[in-house]
């Protein structure tokens, strides 16, 4: 039984050690969730577990608790940053996903109660960057073969060396637990520390993808464009002269075929940039102009 017992002991050691930097995050009724120590008195967690803005209690092992304030939230990546009333003694070593392979063992850690909990699986799927339905950019797609138990969201996914690969959440994809990788967590944390929120470009239109008429498909080489179904008052879209029924074909000369393309055109680096907006209106292609605004 030596290899098995050895494995068993090793797993328990990793859980015990990394588990010291996993905290309980109690900010909702009906069950607390988890958080992971980022550094010093900063804890990252899943945004969706914070259903209120105050009265956030953090369990730091055994019966010890402390209060926390929200530094900032990013609903598009389902991350949030908390500052604790006091430092947690332990920290996690956060690592990138470069050496990670499908089939590697990984442990999901959580602390929805007083004690650390663990789930064991393998890395089931790895992918490149992807966009969440709320428009966030996640730099790697990381999925384990086990679905996390309620209360694990906000906790870390750790390697067999006890290093954190990212933050677990059930709030980004239906019925699936994914891990937001360290690189994305770092970007979000850095921006939240700097300004308390994440900047995004903003046009102010509600859209729906639509198939282009055959002649325009030939002309533009695009199958679809985005029909404007609403325009927010005072928005950059309104200032450009966009009205309901216009079909957006391109922004800043980049084709806009799907929701993803619109988000790409409204990246952080485009805030304040003056752009052309090519539209199809009543069968005619027209060029409008606007300056991309900022959404909080």
């Amino acid at each position, binding site marked *: 039984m030596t290899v098995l017992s050895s494995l068993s002991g090793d797993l*328990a050691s990793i859980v015990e050690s990394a588990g010291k930097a996993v905290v309980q995050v109690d900010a909702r009724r009906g069950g607390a969730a988890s958080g992971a120590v980022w550094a010093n008195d900063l804890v990252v967690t899943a945004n969706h577990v914070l259903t209120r803005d105050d009265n956030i209690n953090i369990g730091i092992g055994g019966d010890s608790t402390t209060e926390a304030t929200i530094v900032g939230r990013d609903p598009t990546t389902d991350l949030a940053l908390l500052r604790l009333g006091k430092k947690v003694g332990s920290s996690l070593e956060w690592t990138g996903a470069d050496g990670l392979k499908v089939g590697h063992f990984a442990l999901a850690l959580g602390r929805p109660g007083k004690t650390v909990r663990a789930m*064991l699986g393998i890395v089931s799927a790895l992918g490149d960057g992807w966009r969440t339905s709320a428009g966030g950019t996640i730099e790697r797609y990381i999925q384990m073969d086990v679905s996390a138990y309620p209360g694990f969201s906000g906790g870390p996914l750790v390697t067999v060396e006890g290093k954190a690969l990212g933050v677990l959440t059930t709030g980004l994809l239906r019925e699936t637990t994914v891990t937001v990788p360290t690189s994305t967590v770092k970007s979000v944390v850095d921006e939240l520390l700097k300004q308390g929120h994440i900047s995004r470009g903003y046009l102010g239109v509600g859209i729906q993808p639509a198939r282009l008429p055959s002649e325009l498909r030939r002309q533009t080489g695009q199958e679809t464009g985005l029909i404007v179904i609403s325009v927010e008052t005072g928005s950059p879209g309104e200032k450009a002269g966009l009205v309901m029924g216009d079909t957006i074909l391109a922004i800043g000369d980049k084709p806009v075929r799907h929701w993803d393309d619109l988000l790409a055109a409204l990246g952080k680096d485009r805030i304040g940039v003056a752009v052309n907006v090519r539209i199809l209106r009543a069968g005619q292609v027209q060029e409008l102009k606007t300056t991309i605004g900022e959404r909080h």
Partner: protein
Amino acid sequence: MSVLHQLNDEVAALAEKVKLSLVQVRCGRDGGAAGTVWHPDGLILTNAHVVGGARPRVRLPDGSTLEARVLVRHTSLDLAALAVDAEELCPIPLGDSGALEPGQFVLALGHPWGIKNAVTAGIVMGAGADYLDVKYPQRLVAVNLSLRPGNSGGPLVDSAGRLVGINTMMTGPDSGLAIPVNVAKAFLKEEIGARNS
């Protein structure tokens, strides 16, 4: 690859060994669940929720089916002790559930969805103190492995092949709860004065 192969072989050998202590428990026309041999002279442990009403029938590892007597049934602990007229059954060496640590490897045997003598593996998730159903007054062992109807009453063993729990309920697709073996020991000692070996 050698450690992985060794691991494979060890887990398979462990499963084979524990199967000798796994029985099927059928009550009336119900789907059927599992039971764990506790003593060579025919003492079987299972969940209380598995037996009730009709007299249970137990199918032993050698294929024979016997009628069982319900010696004691404790609904709030969800444990029941059955007696069958058999000898030389194989009990599993008893472990210490108090020493269980989150992360350590465990194996569960039972008959999930009627698949006989099925094995699932995973780790101890944590101590169950934080999320008890009111039905279970004792601490339960939370395990990160798949349990389904038909696993109830079956054994949970550690990497050394010792009995550490009686599988009792599923709480998610990859998680479940087991009654700690220390609770079962105390239950049997009190209810029928069984000696723990």
